[in-house]
């Protein structure tokens, strides 16, 4: 199974990810992509931008373990995870998860599981700019619930 895990300041391209998955992982019938983007508000405050930090080394290893777990559960052809760090503006892309599989159900499930685990297990932190200054974003209990649901 093909995999690529990248943590980078630069933006990514979905079309390039599609081409890469097709070239590297055979002719999969179903490809699912998720992109998270910076919203312009949070908790009723206007958000001017985000600053994204990670734990170098550990984060890459965790993303790798998350993809391992998806590959254990479903027959995947390939998976790409790209997560951006640094300063981002509203509307900017934050994260890309792309998964290819023979059948669409597997591609959808694996892509969503990787996102749910990434949200709760990968060491990234967001600081947002709001009218009052900056604040570290707090984790949502709904994200924890979504991740835990995969273990049920």
């Amino acid at each position, binding site marked *: 199974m093909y995999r690529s895990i990248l943590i980078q300041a630069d933006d990514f391209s979905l079309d390039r990810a599609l081409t890469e998955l097709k070239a590297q992982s055979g002719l999969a019938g179903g490809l699912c992509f998720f992109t*998270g983007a910076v919203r312009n508000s949070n908790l009723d405050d206007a958000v001017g931008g985000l600053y*994204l*930090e*990670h*734990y170098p*080394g*550990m984060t890459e*290893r*965790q993303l790798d373990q998350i993809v391992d777990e998806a590959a254990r559960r479903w027959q995947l052809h390939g998976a790409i995870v790209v*997560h951006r760090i640094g300063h981002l503006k509203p509307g900017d892309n*934050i*994260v890309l998860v792309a998964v290819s599989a023979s059948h669409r159900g597997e591609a959808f499930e694996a892509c969503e599981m990787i*996102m749910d685990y*990434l*949200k*709760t*297990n*990968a*060491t*990234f*932190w*967001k600081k947002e700019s709001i009218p009052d200054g900056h604040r*570290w*974003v*707090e*984790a949502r209990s709904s994200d*924890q619930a979504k991740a835990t649901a995969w273990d049920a």
Partner: protein
Amino acid sequence: MGQSELEILLEAPTTVAALKSMIKLPNGETLNAASRTQTIMTAVDQEMVDDSAMVSVTSEVAFFPPVTGG
């Protein structure tokens, strides 16, 4: 993440819980006390662990709040 680094010389392996009681936050509270009111996650040698995990004398240990990427 408002990181700060700290070197602690351990004479013998210990648990995460014991280590948390040795570290004080700027407000004087130990990390152990603080974890009763907020979630503090721990990584030992870049693997997520719970309070019962062992810390060797050469371990890299990190404490941080719940993650918020994606």
